[in-house]
Each structure stands twice: as C-alpha cells, then as structure tokens.
C-alpha cells in the first residue's frame, strides 16, 4: 500500500489538486485570483515533493514503473507547469473559467506522468491520449477568438490522424512480436522489415508531438492561435515529456534497432534544424517566431539523443531543464507584453529596453540562453548535447548542427538588437508587472544563470541514470 502512495506521489498530488479545484468550482463563487493562488501553492508543493523520495519500483503488474530519473523528470514537468501558472497570471485572472483551465492542464500533466512511467504499449497509448485531448480543449480557451478555435480544430484533427498511425504501428508490433510489454518486447526485436515499419509508425507519433520535420506542420498554427499559457505548456511541458519518453523508448525498448533509429535521428534532426531555422528567420510575430525556434531546438535535442544511453539521457534531461527556464522566460515576457499592450510583432519590440528595462534584460538573457551563448546555461546545454552526439564520431553531423546553431544566433540576436539598439517612434509603454509574474521571471533568470555555472546539477542528473 505504501508503494502506491510513495511511488505515485506526483500523480496523487496532481489528482488531489484536480479534485480540489473541481470541488471549489462546483461549490460556488470563488474569486479567480484565489483559485489561482491555490493552484500555484499546490503545484509548488508537488514540485518540491517531486524532487524528493524518488526510488525504484513497479506497480500494477509492471504496467507502471518508476525510478529516480523518472521522478526527477516528473518534478521538472511540474516545475515548468508551476512557472507557467506564475508567468501567465495576467491572462489567468482575466479568464472566466480558471478552474476548468487548470483542471484540463493538470489532467494533461497527469497523462504525461503516466506516459513516462508506462511499461506497456497499451498504457502508453492511453496516457498519450490523456495528455493530448485536454490540450486540444485548452487551445480553444480564447473563446471569443476565431483563431483560437481554429487552432483547437487543427490540433485535434492532426492528433487524431497521428494517433491512427500510432495505433496501426502498435497493432503491427503486436503482430510481429506477440507482446505489448516493453520489457518482453525488446527480446523479440530482430530488425525484420515489419518491425522496422511498425517502429517508424511509432516514431511518427513521437515526431508529431515533438514537432519533428516533416510532422511539425500543425505546430505554428496551433502555437499562434492558442492562448500563450497553452503555447508555453505545449512547447515546454509537452515537449519535455515526449522527449523523456522517447529516450526511454529508444534506449530501453528499441535498443536492438539501434542502427535504424540512429540514422532516423540523424536525418530528421538535420531536417528539423534546417527547416526550423529557415522558417524562424522569416517570422515577424513573436509567438510564431518562438514556435519555429523551438522546432529548431528540438533538432538539437535529437542530436544529443542520438548518442545513446548515458550521455544521451543526461545531456537531453539537462538541456530540457535549461530549455524550460529559457523558453518560459521568453514566453513570459511575450505574454505580459501582449496582454498589456496587445502587441506581438517583432517591430513593436524596438526600443523596448528604454521603457521596460527589466523585461528586456530577462528577454535578452533568455534569448542568449536559447542561442547558446556563454556563460548562460544554454551554452552548456548545447555543448553537452553536441559532445554527446560527437561520441558517435559522425563529425559531419555535428558540423551541420553547429552551423545551424550559428544560423540561429542570427535570429535570436536580431530580437535583442531591436530591443536594445533600435529606436522606435511609437514604443511599447512601460508595463506594470504583477508580483507573481515578477517572481516567475526572476526564478527563470536565476535558473538560466545558475544551471550553467554550477556543475553539480549536471552531475546530479548523471548520478540518477
């Protein structure tokens, strides 16, 4: 019984929060800022508890399993959700259905937890759907905006399609190996064509969620149309969760197909970096810009993932931690500015540093980190990803990745330049920053600096593997 409590502590805490919010909502009129603080406190508790008491264990006849690394990954996802609840406070307070929003978001988070912990293809599929469908509803949350409904529509249709392919892959797998349990499956893998085909179908499901080219097309439309809280949830929490599951899948389950997935990763990673960069260069809308740039970032994650077991896992988890801080800080700034001034275009950001020095510095720090400029954490993150990838001694692949890193410098720094160096006749007025948003931005900023400078964090992650 104890096992069910301790091993599933993150799931329990999130479930309790969901029910708490539900009851409060049903009971009656509670002010939404009250609800928001309750949700924030619960998420903070879940984050802290998430980092503690992590150990090995299996439940439900190996349908569910966990270990210290998985515990850490869940804590990381909770942390990201907590940061979102801080950073988008402005938008949350305005919305009519705050409790519903959090219930849906936390349900998706719960789905991701179960997905990371799943030990069986069926469990994996169910939790994947649990993590997807609520997000489609969330995308529709700007009820009065047509673009938001369009985003939700596109997302649910694309997801349904992707799920179809995934289910097809799973059934082919069952046919080829006769089992759907992860641990039993790896013994049956030999690399025959049917297995390769079903693996590729499975891979497309991950690729779709991670917005890997050419399965990324839904990303930009959905990111642009959804409320920023949803966009940041999709681009940070959802991406991290799927990256973690993907690592488990290729290293633990599909290791016998190593040759296939290595080259699959090389090809899709290059395509993703190149296409992501090409599109990001052209974007004028900040949300769309961040969406495409986050596609390119996933390309780099795949470089690290291609390394194999230990260095691959440690570098990807470490990078996702840094990416969480950096990307959320960038989205946080965009969210405040778009809430307060309604401006989302890059040209509006000209001269931002005069009127809003704090926001500009946080944004600059976040963009430096995303671009991988030392001494921000992003530099170390990319460094470890590339060195992990280089351990395969496939150097031209690393050279291409490095070239793409340089290209990405251009568009990240373009934003910094327009914030700090260009003049604007009609600048964004100085905006008031709420206390919780301020706190969230500071947390992200500290995270960006500290994660890079103190190497014990990386060593801690390595020690978990």
């Amino acid at each position, binding site marked *: 019984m104890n096992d069910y409590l301790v091993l599933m502590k993150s799931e329990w805490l999130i479930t309790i929060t969901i029910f708490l919010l539900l009851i409060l909502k049903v009971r009656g009129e509670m002010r939404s800022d009250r609800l928001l603080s309750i949700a924030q406190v619960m998420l903070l508790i879940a984050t802290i508890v998430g980092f503690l008491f992590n150990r090995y264990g299996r439940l439900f006849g190996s349908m569910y399993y966990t270990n210290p690394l998985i515990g850490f990954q869940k804590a990381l996802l909770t942390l990201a959700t907590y940061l979102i609840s801080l950073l988008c406070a402005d938008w949350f307070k305005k919305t009519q259905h705050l409790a519903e929003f959090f219930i849906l978001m936390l349900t998706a988070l719960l789905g991701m937890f179960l997905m990371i912990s799943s030990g069986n293809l069926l469990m994996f599929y169910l939790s994947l759907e649990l993590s997807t469908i609520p997000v489609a509803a969330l995308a529709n949350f700007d009820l009065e905006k047509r673009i938001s409904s369009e985003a939700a*529509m*596109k997302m649910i*249709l*694309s997801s349904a*399609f*992707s799920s179809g*392919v995934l289910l097809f892959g799973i059934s082919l797998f069952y046919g080829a190996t006769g089992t759907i349990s992860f641990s039993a499956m790896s013994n049956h893998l030999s690399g025959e*064509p049917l297995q*390769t*085909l079903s693996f*590729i*179908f499975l*891979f*497309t499901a991950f*690729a*779709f969620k991670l917005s890997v080219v*050419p*399965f990324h*097309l*839904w990303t*930009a*439309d959905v990111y642009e149309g959804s409320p920023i809280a949803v966009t940041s949830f999709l681009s940070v929490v959802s991406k991290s969760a799927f990256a973690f599951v993907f690592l488990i899948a290729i290293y633990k389950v599909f290791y016998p197909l190593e*040759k*296939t997935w290595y*080259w*699959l990763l090389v*090809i*899709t990673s290059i395509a993703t970096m190149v*296409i992501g960069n*090409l*599109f990001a*260069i*052209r974007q004028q809308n900040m949300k769309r810009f961040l969406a495409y740039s986050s596609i390119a970032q996933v390309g780099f994650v795949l470089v690290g993932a291609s390394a194999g077991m230990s260095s691959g896992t440690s570098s990807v988890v470490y990078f996702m931690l840094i990416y969480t801080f950096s990307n959320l800080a960038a989205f946080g700034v965009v969210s405040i500015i778009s809430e307060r001034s309604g401006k989302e275009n890059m040209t509006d950001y000209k001269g931002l540093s005069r009127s809003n020095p704090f926001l500009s510095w946080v944004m600059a720090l976040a963009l430096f980190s995303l671009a991988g400029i030392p001494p921000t954490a992003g530099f170390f993150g990319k460094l470890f990803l590339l*060195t992990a990838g280089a351990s395969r001694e496939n150097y031209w692949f690393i050279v291409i990745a490095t070239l793409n890193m340089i290209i990405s410098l251009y568009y990240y720094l373009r934003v910094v330049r327009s914030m700090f160096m260009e003049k604007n006749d009609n600048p964004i007025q100085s905006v008031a920053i709420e206390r919780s948003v301020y706190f969230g931005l500071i947390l992200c900023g500290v995270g960006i600096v500290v994660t890079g400078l103190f*190497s014990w964090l*990386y*060593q801690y992650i390595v020690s978990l593997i």
Partner: protein
Amino acid sequence: MPNSLYIACIPLLPLVSFALLGLFGTRVFKNLSGLLATVLLVVSTILAIWVAYNYFFHFGQANGIYQRIIAGQVTWLRFSSELSIDMGLMLDPISCMMIVVVSFISLMVHIYSLSYMKGEERYPTYYAFLSLFTFSMLGLVLSSNMFQIYIFWELVGVSSYLLIGYYYDRPGAVKASQKAFIVTRFADLGFLIGILVLSFYSNTLDFNTLIERLTNPASPGLKTALASSFLGISAITWGSVLVFMGGAGKSAMFPLHIWLPDAMEGPTPVSALIHAATMVVAGVYLVARLFPVFSISAPASLDLVTFVGVLSALLAALIACTQTDIKRVLAYSTMSQIGFMMFSLGVARHGHEEQLGYSASMFHLFTHAFFKALLFLCAGIIIHLVHSNEMNDMGGIRKNLPVTHICFLIACLAISGIPPFAGFFSKEEILQASWQRNKVVFWIALTTSGITAFYMFRLYFKIFWHKPLGHQASHADTAEGDTMIRLPLVILAIGSLLTGFIPFGRFVSADGTPVHTDLNLIFSVGPVLVGLAGIFLARWLYLNKNDAPEKIKNGTRALYTAAYHKFYIDEIYVFITRRIIFNLVGKPAAWFDRNVVDGLVNTTGNTTQIVSKKIKGLQSGKVQEYAIYFLLGAGGLALLFIYGWK
C-alpha cells in the same frame, strides 16, 4: 596549514573592491574609492605575507623538500571521470613568493596613486581597474591547473588593456592599448594550443598530475608525446615551445616585445605595477611553473628560452642607450632584465647541481620587482615636475626632488649590480649559472650588464645633473610633497637595499631542495668592475654638458641609428603586416571574399529566401494537406529504412 579560506581571500578581496567600485564607485564612494581599495589590499597583503611565511617556515616542507600543496579545490566543470576543470589554490615556493611580490608592489602603487591620481576625473574607475588587475594577477599565480591559469592570463590581459587605455581621450593611449592587446592575444593563441597539446598527452589539466605524467619516462602519455613528432620535433617540445610563446608575449620577449614601449602611454603608477613588477614577469613565472616539463622532457625548448632571453636582454639594452623618453628607457630596461630572468631559466637543468639558474631567475624576479617599481614611481614624480617625458627637458633637479633623487640613485645602483644593493646578488647568481653552463651566454650577459649600468646612469645623470642646479622652477612641494607619495618610495628603496641578503636558494629551487648560493668573491670582481666601468663612462659623458656624446654618436652612426630606431623591428612588423600580409594575403583574400564568399553567401541568402518562399506553401493552413505530408513523411521514412538502409 592556514585555512584555505584565508588563502582564497588573498585574490578575492581585490575582486570585492573591483565589484564595489565598479558598481558604486562613481556614485557612492567617489573620492573614498582609493582608500577602500587600499584598505582591502592591505588586508590581502598581510594575508599573503602571513601565508608565505607559514609556508616557508612551517608547513611547506616535508623531509626537507618544499612541496606543491593544493590548498583548496573546487570542481567547476566535469567532462568525464578523468578530465575536469577545477578552480584551485596552489602553494609552492614560487607561488608564495609571487603573491607577496604582487600584493606588496600593488599595495605600494595603490598608496602612491592615492595622491598621484587625485583629481582625475575617473578616479574610482582607475581603482576599480587596478583592483581587477590585482585580482587577476593573484589568481594567476595561485592557479592549480592550466585552464585556470589561462582564464586569469586573459583577465590580466584585459585589465592591462583597460589600464593602458585609461586616458581614453588620448589617441596614443588607445592605440597602445590595442597594440598591447593584439600582440599578446596573438601570443596567447600559441599558449592555448600549447595547453591543448600538453593536456592532450597528459590527459589532465592539473599542474601536479600533468608535471608528474609528463616527466615520468614510464608514463604512456610522455611516451606517445615523445614518439609523435611534427616537422621533426617531438610533440612535447612543440607543446612547451607554444606555451613559451604565450609567456614571451606577456613578458615582452623578442620579437613579441613591440607592445611594451608603447604601453608606457598608460598612467605611470600603472607602468610601475604592470610593466615592471607583475604582469610582464608572468611569462617567466609560466616557464618556471612548468619547468620540470621543460627541463626533463623538452630540453630543446630551454635552449630556445635561453636564446630568446639573451637576445632580448642585449637588444633591449642597446636600444635603451639611445632612447630619450625616460619611460621608454625604463621599458627597454625592463625587457632587458626579463631577458636575464628568461635565459637564466634557460641555462638551468633539472638536478641538484644544475638548478642554480632557476633559483637565480626567481631571485632576480623578486629583487627586480622592487627596484624597477621604484624607478617607475620616481619617474612619475619627475614627469609631474617637468611636465615632459623627454630627458632633454630635465637636468639639475636633484635639489628639487631630494627624496626622489636618493631613491632613484639606489634603484640605479641596484639594477647595475653594485654591492650591497639587491640587484648585485641576484645578477651575480645569474652570471654564475650561465658561466657553469654556457660561456657564450655568460659573455653576452656580462656585456649587457655593463651596458645596463651605462644607460641607467646616463638616465640618472641626465635627469639629476647635466644642467646647472635650479634650472627648473622650484615647486617641489607639489611634486613630492605628499607623504603618501614619498612613503612607497622609501619602502621600496629599503627593499632594494635589503632583499639581496635573503638566502633565496634555500627557499626557492626547481625540485624543492635548498640550493647553495655561495657568493664567490673572486667571481664577483669581474661583473662589478664592468658595472663600475659603465657608470664611469656615463659619468664622463653625461655629468656635465659636453660634446663627447655627439662625437660617439657620430663615430658609431650606423649602430646608433639602428638602435635609435629600435633595430627597425616595428618597421619589420609594419612591412610584414602591410606589405606582405595585406598585399599577398589580404588582397587576394579580399578578392576571394568579395567574389567567392560573398557570392556564396548571397547565393545562400537568395536560395534561402527562394526555398523559404517555396516551402511556405507547405504551411498552407489546411489540415488535410498537413495529413498528406505526415503520411508522405512516414511512408518515405519507412521505404528508406526498409529498402535503402539495410
């Protein structure tokens, strides 16, 4: 052993004062900035002396041998279980000696600047930069691994760039700071490659382990390093030579010395600190730090060190004889003296009998810091009085500046190697070491030390005698009136008198065992006579105005002109950079850049634009098309991997 926290405070206190003054200097501290920095540095200096004292007399020795002790270490970045970058504090005889020299000389300069720089517009900034420099230099000497020393090495470069360019409204100063930065950066490139080579073969960055692995003939790293060669020279020799290249850049050794004379554009106290006592000896320190690697595994590189050192010593001395700007004379004399330290290291070898040169070099580094800082600080006062750097504008000012006069005389006697001043003892050891090892070097060194005595006393007589007394309007009160200005002079003068009596070989040697440095009286007669001859020659030519110098100048016109123009080394650089690099490399490169690279970039840019427009069609906004691409992607990959990638 003292708590490592105390040792860490030695470099960190100046960093604190840099942070405070950098952030709040101009708004909060204003005129108190100097005092704040000085007080913090006093603490740091006391700690440094205390740590050094304890090291030499209490905890440093084990079985009569001075050990390399790691007093504290933090892992900063770990790459693998084998390789990590640490930040550590290393105590050994030379680092203990250096923390004393650096903090002490820096303290003198801080005190001197309190009144010398008073009224400067950017007074707090000046002290902030000074503190940054002191921090970097102390961090450099305490470094326990190659990477750390490189970081501090660059920080020293940056802070010296900031200090040389302190008068940023003077074009000369700006140019000089850039020149110093670029020339040393160029040398640092070699240093970095050297670090990489050495750490590649030893598979570590840590000094202790690196030295151990690269000197033990049985270690696999050394074997591969000796076996692999490039252009007929072993990898370990290449590594050592490249590290030495970095050292030669910072220490202004021929042919990388061209930045040093120009760097005199900075404030004079800065020259005393950076270009006399501390930064320029960093190169010597670096070679001494890796001395076991140089001497045991790459003796050929020590021959290069000897050659470069002796050439720099002689060349700089000859140039110094013809310069008329007093700070430039001092700059060339610094270069010459560092040449002495270098070749003294170069003639030393590992082993008890042959390591005299090592101790001698460190000894000279120590004594030189005192008298050369003193000379620069005196020069600062003189320049304030005369409002010119030209020695022809000076003369007969010994009554205007009585304290400065005596101090300057003491320093000149010390640098000329006249007993009982400090320079005599250290130079004596250097000459003995070179006599044992290489007679040619000895004779050149002896000649150079005669020339040194000559040009230093030429400087002395031309400043303080040469013209009738009272030639300068007397406003002595303003020039050396302040006690704060006189105090460091007197302390340094006492140092120049007494430091020679320290039995240096007992404390500092290559392998940690005491070296006997008996003063050989018979041997000393020669060098002292040569020194005296130089002094009397200078006295005959320059005590009073006469036409003898002109005659000599005319008699040796070719040599004089060559030396006056610093042997045209600057011109050679200009020729190489402008004519050869610009015309033969630069112009074709520019053509290539314009037509091929730009063309490529433009094509890439255009292609990107076109492709980007084309694939914009991909992003049509229609979900059914997205599904098609999804299916095509999945199918394409499946075909590729099932049929293509067997």
